[in-house]
């Protein structure tokens, strides 16, 4: 339950952020009140990271901690600045809030648990440290979050239109499979930017790594998952078409599979 509350909070924040993004570039975000994220590496951050994160992510953030060895998916190597779950465009660094969200929510289907056993201060304190592991944060800044329009009401028609996009226009099935089981013709040969094999997501399981809300799904294929073959389709669709595709992707969830 705690989860939901947190998601709502962050979700609400992000919605505001998207709306005001254009205005706040360069100025301290108005929303900073909702969540205070330190800008400098602190002792608390170092201690929290060492104790809870370095066993997997490694002392220097290279994803090579003692527990990482036999793990797949691998703990993220932070040195490239490639973050999967973002509100920002393809290739952009994540916002601090994106990172906070992943840390709090965890990554389903991986060993990355929701770190809600830590206090909000502890979770925010590691963010500057994670950023300090990558040169990318020195030379670039995250772009403004992408616009997410008002959700279209899901109907049979929106799902049918989404199916057309999935199967004909954007050919998602090449990786994710016609039924969304992650078994398309190109699925077997996919690898991530770190050279490890990676499977296109199996939608039937319903346990989306980046969150299960329609907004989450919309964001995933709009921004892409950096560091993976999952591309951004930002240039290909109108806002309405994105919701159609979102509704179709969600319709691929098989209730029997999710209860497993």
């Amino acid at each position, binding site marked *: 339950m705690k989860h939901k509350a947190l998601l709502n909070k962050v979700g609400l924040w992000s919605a505001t952020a998207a709306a005001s993004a254009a205005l706040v570039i360069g100025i301290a975000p108005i929303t900073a009140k909702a969540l205070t994220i330190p800008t400098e590496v602190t002792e608390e951050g170092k201690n929290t990271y060492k104790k809870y994160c370095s066993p997997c992510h490694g002392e220097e953030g290279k994803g090579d901690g003692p527990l990482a060895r036999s793990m797949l998916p691998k703990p993220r190597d932070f040195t490239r600045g*490639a973050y999967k779950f973002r509100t920002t465009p393809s*290739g952009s660094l994540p916002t601090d809030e994106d990172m906070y969200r992943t840390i709090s929510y965890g990554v389903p289907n991986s060993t990355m648990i929701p770190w809600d056993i830590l206090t909000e201060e502890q979770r925010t304190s590691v963010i500057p440290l994670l950023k300090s592991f990558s040169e*990318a944060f020195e*030379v670039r800044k995250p772009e403004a979050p992408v616009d997410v329009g008002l959700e279209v009401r899901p109907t049979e028609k929106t799902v049918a239109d989404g199916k057309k996009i999935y199967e004909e226009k954007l050919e998602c099935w090449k*990786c994710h499979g016609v039924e969304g089981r992650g078994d398309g013709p190109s699925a077997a040969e996919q690898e991530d930017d770190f050279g490890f094999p990676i499977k296109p997501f199996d939608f039937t399981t319903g346990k989306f790594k980046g969150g299960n809300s329609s907004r989450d799904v919309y964001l995933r294929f709009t921004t892409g998952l950096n560091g993976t073959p999952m*591309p951004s389709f930002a240039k290909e669709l109108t806002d309405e078409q994105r919701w159609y595709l979102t509704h179709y992707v969600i319709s691929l969830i098989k209730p029997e599979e999710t209860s497993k």
Partner: protein
Amino acid sequence: MKQLLLLCAFFGFLNWNVISSEDTLADNYTEVEVKDGGTVVGNVKYMGDLTTLSLNLYAEWELPEISKTATEKLIVSMVNHGLKYAVVSITDITHGKKKVIPTIHPIIDQQRNTFIPHVTAIISGTAIDILNGDEELHTVHTRTIKNQPFNLGTTYKQRISKTFEYPETIKLTCDLHKKSYAWIVVLDNPYFDITDKNGYFEICDIPPGTYKFQVWHEELGKLEKEVKINPKETSNIEFIYSQY
């Protein structure tokens, strides 16, 4: 300094200690007027065994035999051993002609699951347009750290424009057609050229002096040579890769 300011405007919201740090901008090139510059014309050759190059990527293309090359990775002229798609540059030049950023963007097109051209060399700050000429889905995926990477799904006739700010050698791939890829070589001074199908290149308006010339090829690696440039003279140089 002018470039520094320009970059600041571009990255308007970067903080100051980043902007003023030297190494992140690699801004050690000064533009001057070059009056009696010299020219280098040259040839890059591959003298290795040509029979080992078996894969014929252009097999299905309706092209005359002579223009079908052995592999996209290593394109060698059967006539003079000239090596195509090698990038020749001067690595230690600190001042010289103006950096001209082309207003017409160079194009990389995906046609029949192949990136064309295979290698593009540009000056930092140049935008490249990436096109999809096939009636199917492609992706364009880079993995850079300094230049912002990208991974975009593109459909027929899509045109994506990307600007490359930092000198890096970048591999551009499509995750749906793994056989084909392209290279984007971003350089920080305007003294470079890419070899043609017979291995020829030309670099002009070089202020007199002695410089390190380097050639880079994706399969064969790098070679270096020091060359003295005399005012208004043309020097000939040759780079030779032996068997690899």
